[in-house]
Structure formats: structure tokens, C-alpha cells
């Protein structure tokens, strides 16, 4: 053999140099060598295709500049009791409301067990800051901006917010009381930096 490998293969060789002279019977093997090659080749291409799909799907997610808007600082010193302002958080409206004692009392008077999305006003505000109701101004039904934050707007039958699109009504704690919306107005993450400045997000 060694001697054979030192020379070039020629057309005269019946069996190529260095190969097994015994015939290979494909039918006798299960799976056949070809089956293995087929499966291996298709699997390799399939994994490659999946790897390419990933960025194609992921490009749809919010881009870095959109995510960069995810914190907002607010000065709330000018908001009198009974007033509310509309701010903007992640390009969505944000309601900041200074509740009056009467509104707090109205929210506390509700039997929490009877609510669609049971939460107390305490759970929806920060400790010691029960009068500051900070929620997204996005109806949890299909995303309209509820009325009630602006001066003279319809606050709905429960004195909180009222969505004009499909008639969802929220109470003074921003909790869903009537209409098609499934949950209370969303309370975003926020912290009080001081008594008058809030960081949302």
C-alpha cells in the first residue's frame, strides 16, 4: 500500500488508490449513507434559515431611540387639588392628578371585591402620597385617550375618566367601573425625587 501511495492514480487502476476494494452495498445499510447526507444537509440549511429569520423578526421591536424615551421627569408643583395634567411618557399620554379629599373618600368607599380589577387606591399610589394619582392616559380597551384630565372634560359617571371611543368609565382611582375595558388604567413605574418632582419610567 505504501508503495502504491507514492505514485499518481491512473485510468488503469480499477480501484482508486487508498479506497476499500470491497463493494459498498447501500441497500444493506439502514439508514443509508445518502439518507444521512440528505438529513444533515437539510438540517444545516434549516438552522441557517432560522438564524436569518431571527433578525427579520427582531427588527420589528422598538428601536434604541424609541426605548431611549423611556424615562420622563415631571414637575408637579403647579397642580392644585382637583386638577390634572397630561404629560407624555414613551410618546403615550400620562395623566397626573392631584385628588381632592372628596375624591379620595369616594375611591376608598368602594367595595374592592366588587371591582373588575380589584385594587385599592393605596395600591395604585405611593405611600404618603395618596393624593397623587399617576396613570397612563391610555384606555385599557383599545388605547384611546380617556377624557377627564382636561379642564371641563366629561369625567364620566364615576367622576374619574371617561373614554369616548367605546364608553369605558373609570373612577377617581383610575379603576375600570363600567364599559368594555378589561383592567384599570395602567400605573407606570415612578419615584418621587422630591415632593414636587417625579421621575416616571
Amino acid at each position, binding site marked *: 500500500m505504501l508503495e502504491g501511495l507514492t505514485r499518481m492514480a491512473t485510468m488503469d487502476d480499477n480501484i482508486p488508490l487508498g479506497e476499500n476494494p470491497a463493494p459498498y452495498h447501500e441497500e444493506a445499510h439502514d439508514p443509508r449513507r445518502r439518507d444521512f447526507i440528505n438529513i444533515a444537509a437539510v438540517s444545516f440549511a434549516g438552522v441557517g434559515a432560522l438564524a436569518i429569520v431571527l433578525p427579520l423578526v427582531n427588527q*420589528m*421591536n*422598538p*428601536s434604541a431611540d*424609541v426605548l431611549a424615551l423611556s424615562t420622563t421627569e415631571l414637575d408637579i408643583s403647579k397642580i392644585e387639588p382637583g386638577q390634572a395634567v*397630561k404629560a*407624555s411618557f*414613551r*410618546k*403615550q*399620554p400620562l395623566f397626573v392628578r392631584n385628588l381632592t379629599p372628596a375624591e379620595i373618600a369616594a375611591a376608598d368607599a368602594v367595595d374592592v371585591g366588587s371591582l*373588575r380589577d380589584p385594587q385599592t387606591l393605596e395600591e395604585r399610589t405611593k405611600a404618603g402620597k395618596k393624593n397623587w394619582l399617576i396613570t397612563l*392616559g*391610555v384606555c*385599557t*380597551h*383599545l*388605547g*384611546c*385617550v380617556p377624557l377627564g384630565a382636561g379642564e371641563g372634560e366629561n369625567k364620566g359617571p364615576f367622576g374619574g375618566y371617561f*373614554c*369616548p*371611543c*367605546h*364608553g369605558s368609565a373609570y373612577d377617581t382611582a383610575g379603576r375600570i367601573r363600567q*364599559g*368594555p*375595558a*378589561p383592567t384599570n388604567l395602567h400605573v407606570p413605574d415612578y419615584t418621587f425625587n422630591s415632593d414636587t418632582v417625579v421621575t416616571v419610567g
Partner: protein
Amino acid sequence: MSFPWAKHYEPKQPLMRWMDEKLPLPRLVYNAIGAGYPVPRNLNYFWNFGVLAGLALVVQIVTGIVLAMHYAANAGVAFGSVESIMRDVNAGWFLRYAHANGASMFLAVVYIHIGRGLYYGSYKAPREMVWLLGVVIFLLMMATAFMGYVLPWGQMSFWGAQVITGFFSAIPLVGETVRVWLLGGFAPDNAALNRFFSLHYLLPFVIAGVIILHIWALHIPGSNNPTGVDVKGEQDTVPFHPYYTAKDGVGVAAFFLIFAALIFFSPNLLGHPDNYIEANPLSTPAHIVPEWYFLPFYAILKSFTADFLLPAKLWGVLAMFGSILLLFFLPWLDSSPVRSANYRPTYRWFLLVLLLDVIVLGYVGGAEATARNVMLGQIASAYYFAHFLIILPIVSASERPRPLPNSITEAVLAKHGGTSPAKTAMAG
């Protein structure tokens, strides 16, 4: 494909013969919409609407491609670029009004086309695949129309995008993630506008592709006809060209008359004034409604106001999509072997009630959500589903149809006072 007596394409000119050997495209056209396609001889004007729908798609693609040369899909300038099309671009107002009203014409023609299929049983065997592909086209049209409506970036555009992508947030657990993924943000903004523009440009060509499949599937059994009776022989058909090219020509003329009246005399009749206000993410218009062609489905969405096992919001979204997906099952919900409602005395009345029901839903969809309207919408929504899931199976199993004519030719001759080969054709 087609009947054995269909005429054969035999090009005489050497050039056309050469073409036929290399690429038989003229042969394909000849067999699809030329003299090589035999069609029942008794089609009425309701059979114009397939061709009209195709024509409307061509109008939309042509005006749309031209508009895209002047439009900018960026949230900062989109509204302004549409205003500049209206004021500055030469004939821009015409192109935009043609495109906006063209969408209404397209949907109107397609609704009549669907109604024709419902009345004459065109969804039944052997044409189920034609119907299924038609429902696919309808879904693609709805998606395209919605995304196109977002592009001017007016108040209705913005809030329409907000509400419709909000449907996806009804999906349990992953809904909000899906919504943010679709929008590329937490609310509709530049990312959403750009991708909607991209897809709005793409989908019409997908629609054109599915239309080719729709026509291919149609040409295997051949067209249905007002009697619903199968073609029995050559005397029952005429070649598509020149007979139905001419008849469709009349319909095309009427189509363009109505279309022109809309564009030139009342271009904003079907639009909303609020969409001439630029999108404002902090203020929802007092009364948001979709375009007229979505109102019945919007009414179904609004009809769910109380939780029952699932949240009301999820029910509304499921019911709204379900009302269209239900159409995929229609060929199997209706078991009657008789196709045409002309010979189905009971079904015919229920179909009329369904039409009225959809009109009521359309009214409720556009009306304010007062207690009376919500109640009306709930009744009408319930009836819509009852029609397909309860009434239709019962009626098709129990109704006694009128005697069918023995052939299309017999029905035609009987109608025109000729000697009827069989008395049965006159019955009923």
C-alpha cells in the same frame, strides 16, 4: 380545464405562431378571458363584479404607485406631504381623491361580488376553493385598506392605528408584547408609519397573486350561473369573448360613471373631516369611527360589554375576526344541494334578513355608544352568527326547494316565452 367544446387557439400570423411556440402567453389569455373560455349563456349583471373588482385593483395600484412618488412616510412630514400632494403636485388632488375613493369603490364592488356568491350559491361544490381564496383576498384587502388609511397621518389615521393594533393586546399573556412588536414602539409613531407604508405597497401585489389563483380555481369547474344548474352541453354556453367582454364593458362604464361622480362632485363624502387634522397622540377625537366598509365589523367588536369567562375585550376581538373567519366554513355549513337562492324559497328570505342585519350593524358601527345602540348592536351581532351557525344548517336540511330547470338553455327559453321542453322549468 374548461369544456371539450372550447375553441382552440390557432394563431394565423407567423409572428404569433412563433410566439406561441416560445412562450404561449397569448394562448393563456385566450383560454382565460378570450374566446377559449366557454361561459354559461345566462349570466346577469351581478357577474360583472368580479371583473370590476379586478379593475378597481388596477386603478388602486396605478394611482398608488404614482402617489408614492410624492408621499413621504415619516411621522414628521407625512401629513404635510399629503397636503402638498393636494395643493402643489400637478393633478395631485385628482390622484389622491381617485385613490381614496377608489378604495371605497373596490370594497363596494367586492361586497356585491360576495353577495352574488351568497345568493347564487357560488361557494358550493365544486367551487369551494374559489370561495376560500376569495375570503383570503377579502382579508388581505381589509389589511391593505387599514394600513393605507393610516398613511395620511391625520387624527383618524393615528387613532385608527391605535385602536386596531390594540386588538392584539387582547391576546392573553403575550398580547401587549405582540402589540409593541407590531408597532415598533409603545404607541403608533414613525416606526409604525414606515412599516405600514412598506406593507401597503406590498400587499396589493400579493392580492393580485391570490386573484390569479382565484381565477385559476374558477376555471376548473367554470363559472356558476343564476340557475345554479351545471352546464350540460355546448348550447348552454357562449365564448367569454366577445359576449362577456362586451357585457362587462357596460358594467365598466357604469363603474366609472359612479367613480367619477364621487371624485369630481363629492370627494370627501365617504371620508372624515377629522382626518384633515394632523395626528395628535395626546388627544382622541370625540367620535372615532372606521371607514364605512369596516363599520359592521366594528359594531360586532363594540357589542361585548361584560366579561363572561373571558374578558369582554377579548370576546369582542374574537367575535370580530370570527365573523369573517366564519365565511371559510360556509361551503360546509350549507348542505343544500341547490345552489341558486332563486330555487330556495326559505333560504332566500333569510338571506334578505341577513342583508338587513348587516346594514343595521353598519349603522350601529358608526353611531355613538348609547344604551339603545349597544343593545341594537348586540341583537344584530347575535343574529349574524345565528344566521350562519343555526339558521343556515337548519334551513338547508329542512327546506323544500323549487323544481330546478333541466338545463340552462331550458331556463333561458322558458323565461323568454319560448317553448319549454319541460313543464318543471315553469313551476314555482
